[in-house]
């Protein structure tokens, strides 16, 4: 486990802690269980999280001027799905890191989602190892 909160932190985790509090993540998912789990995982890194239940709410947030360093985008959602929301965000000029999450295991489906403008795509629920690598990648850009 890389969740360091004290003197036992590894160097890389300490780096996450220093930056973590300044980084924000928008979690876009209609599954309340996934929202709870992913929010918990990201909060442990000190990331500030905000949740919405579909792609349209995500797009509306950015359109209203909100800004997030990373977006965790579910693939299948009512009203507006992940691929459509991702396309709209990229068309608006949003260059935040957008990570797709899907319960669809087929590589072809993940590739199709990637084509909408994702930086990465993973199966859900995310594991702590994957969240660690996401946060480390996010830090690299700062």
């Amino acid at each position, binding site marked *: 486990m890389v969740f360091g909160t004290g003197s036992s932190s590894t160097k890389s985790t300490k780096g996450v802690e220093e930056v973590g509090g300044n980084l924000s993540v928008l979690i876009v998912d209609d599954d309340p*269980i996934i929202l709870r*789990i992913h929010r918990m995982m990201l909060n442990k890194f000190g990331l500030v999280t905000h949740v919405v239940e579909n792609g349209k709410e995500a797009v509306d947030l950015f359109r209203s001027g909100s800004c997030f360093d990373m977006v965790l985008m579910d693939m299948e959602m009512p009203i507006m799905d992940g691929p459509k929301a991702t396309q709209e965000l990229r068309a608006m000029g949003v260059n935040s890191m957008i990570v797709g999450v899907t319960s669809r295991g087929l590589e072809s489906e993940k590739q199709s989602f990637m084509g909408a403008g994702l930086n990465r795509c993973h199966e859900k629920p995310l594991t702590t190892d994957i969240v660690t690598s996401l946060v480390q990648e996010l830090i690299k850009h700062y």
Partner: protein
Amino acid sequence: MERNQLHRQVANMRKSLFDQGFLDEQFIQLEELQDDANPNFVEEVVTLYYRDSTRLILNIEQALEKSPLDFTKLDSLMHQFKGSSSSIGAKKVKLECTQFKEYCKAANGEGCKRTFQQVKKEYGTLKKKIEVYFQVDGRRWLGGVAISGGIALRQWRRINIRRDGTGKGASSRSGVDWTGGIEVVRI
């Protein structure tokens, strides 16, 4: 029941849930997220799962009553339920969901109906087992337990106790009144 005995009971129950295939690695991921600031995280997530999935199960049941069956819709509904079940590590439930989806792909209505009964059976079995596990695990956190004739006197340490301002409170788990630092619980 002495604390060590309780610890062993909890450990054995937990091991049994994994050994019998009811839970998988994802449950461990949830346990690893639990900490002092969120001591009931696993139970909260599992409770959320059982609350949320009631709706999904009802939707699937209703869809299975239609004629002709809409296998695309059935597959989509079961996909959601499978995803939720995976999130808490409900291994056997997930396996039955996968089988159901296979029958949807094959447009096998009887197979879907038969497998759905298995889904509900595994779902119900896990619910019973995990409820008992959380109950016993909750007692593990208490100190100073003494048992006499089915009544336990214990000092309540759980942080989710509600207080009504008069010094009396009720446990969020058993609805038992208590005063001061001693609680009487029927077990």
